[in-house]
């Protein structure tokens, strides 16, 4: 099987090599999503420990390849083949051949700015640089590069291998071609891309702005003694068919899903 085949049946992969910066939970999940769709991935993390952990979880993790086999999403024979599509590298320059690079380092703005500055130097001239930030203004990251028209947001949700969520965040300077490249890629991974506008004065794009507004109100309700965290969660699950309530969601997002 070559890049372009899609053993998971998630979509039809289109595009060249995808770079992923960061081999944490999100970065490794993104790398797996691309690899399962048939794409070649270069996943960069300066930490050897993080790379090794990601490599292990890719196969054995709760949302890893073996679990995908058990769920009928992947043929058992394809496990090794999919795993081999991901190159785990320590140096940023390893993404020089990627057409799209997805940054998934910890959610610290100063760190992301530095990564985008460095990425701009090593990535191919026409490559699209995407941030998986949960909400930092994309314009601030684009401004750190000499290619603001090729920078956009691609916000994933966890687990990235599973969730169809793809919030594509564009600035007024983003090239239509870059948006098209990324939305096509997202469709190819079986995602459901929705394009939204960057908001320089706000954190959270669309999904997190709405979500955190709900969390803030839920916290006020508990602080006022109107209800408990557990009951607020239960009410929202029962009323709106949310999979989990806001407090469980925070717990899952910060400490992982159990």
């Amino acid at each position: 099987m070559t890049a372009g085949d899609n053993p998971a049946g998630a979509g039809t992969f289109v595009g060249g090599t995808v770079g992923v910066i960061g081999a944490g939970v999100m970065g490794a999940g993104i790398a797996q999503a691309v690899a399962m769709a048939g794409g070649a991935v270069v996943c960069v993390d300066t930490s050897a420990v993080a790379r090794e952990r990601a490599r292990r979880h890719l196969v054995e993790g709760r949302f890893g390849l073996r679990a995908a086999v058990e769920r009928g999403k992947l043929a058992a024979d394809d496990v090794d083949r999919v795993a081999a599509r991901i190159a785990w590298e320590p140096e940023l320059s390893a993404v020089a051949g990627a057409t799209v690079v997805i940054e998934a380092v910890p959610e610290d703005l100063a760190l992301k700015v530095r990564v985008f500055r460095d990425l701009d130097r090593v990535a191919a001239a026409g490559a699209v640089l995407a941030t998986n930030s949960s909400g930092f203004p994309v314009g601030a990251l684009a401004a750190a590069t000499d290619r603001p028209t090729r920078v956009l947001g691609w916000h994933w949700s966890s687990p990235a291998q599973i969730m169809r969520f793809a919030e594509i965040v564009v600035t007024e300077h983003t090239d239509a071609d870059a948006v098209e490249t990324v939305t096509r890629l997202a469709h190819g991974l079986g995602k459901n891309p929705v394009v939204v506008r960057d908001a320089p004065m706000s954190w959270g794009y669309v999904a997190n702005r709405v979500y955190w507004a709900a969390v803030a109100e839920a916290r006020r309700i508990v602080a006022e003694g109107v209800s408990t965290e557990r009951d607020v969660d239960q009410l929202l699950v029962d009323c709106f068919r949310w999979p989990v309530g806001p407090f469980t969601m925070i717990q899952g997002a910060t400490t992982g899903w159990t």
Partner: protein
Amino acid sequence: MITLLESATWHNGHVDGVIRDIRRPVPDDGLLSGAILRMGDPDAGPVVAMSIEGRIFPRKAPVHLHKSDSFRMALGEPIRVGGTSYAHGEFRLQRADAFYGPEYWSDEVGTNQLLLMADRRGLKPYLTDAQLQRLADTALADDVSLEGVAMLPRDADVPHAIANSFGAALRPSHFDAGFTDTTGWSTLRDGSRLAAVALGHRESGVLLLCWDRPPGAAALPAFRLGADLVRLVVEGSCRIDDPDGAGGSAQGPDGSTDEPDGRTSRSANRTSGSADRTSGVIGGPSGVELGRLGFRLQQEGTWHGASRSGPAGSKELWIVADRRAWPPLTTAGPPEGPLAEVNVKVAALTSQLAAAA
């Protein structure tokens, strides 16, 4: 020397006030809401904004950086920085030269915060967008609080560092902490908890002391510090005596005399003789009680009266403009008790900074 943007009447080298609850109509009488003050070194010392009201200032700020380490704490309604929400008493230490934001205030009528820039020359925000930068520069040009301050250029080298006594790690350009959870702070012999933070210039920067003093904690003796001091009550209350135990005198406990600078203004609370519970400052014949959001500004080299926490204890932030001035002196010489225990923390911070240099 502490300089208020609006002049104030100093009493024995200090002035007391309160960060107003801005939900109330702004009164005509004395208050320091919105006060901006300069401390310490006349060129490079810290600047403190004691309150920011959403109704007056923009409620949102885009991503930017400063050429100064900074400290901000929510007082009242929450503030947001990036994806983090800070409730009352929670604070953020932000490293100089690192982008952060956007910032915004979630309440319709705005909120209060204490914002400290460790070096006033770093007050200028550097933004990521040229158009926004032009707007910010225009606003700065009209800002009287910056008159005479030469701002550091974007590429200036700032020998700054942030260190703390409770093991919080910069991640990588800021850390969060607060008075809501003080369990990680050091416990002193009288049961108080203490956190110390150094920020700004590696040698002469700011010292922050965060106190969580239970009811019945040991009284602090009168002391004299060789640097400007801001003392803010975050929760509870504290009683501060006049230095000589009698209000209205400019004489310290050692017989020295502090020269009041004679400035007057409607914008400062005089403590002596006033009894305004709504202001968070209750004056009496021999001292003052600072309630929640009450504060004291104490000029360097002047006597600060003995103090003790109130019936519900006190959580306090002390801002020392120049950490080299610690420890203070008491009438008996070097301090004993909790003030002496602070010395150990400050020495440890100094070692941390030296090791990191």
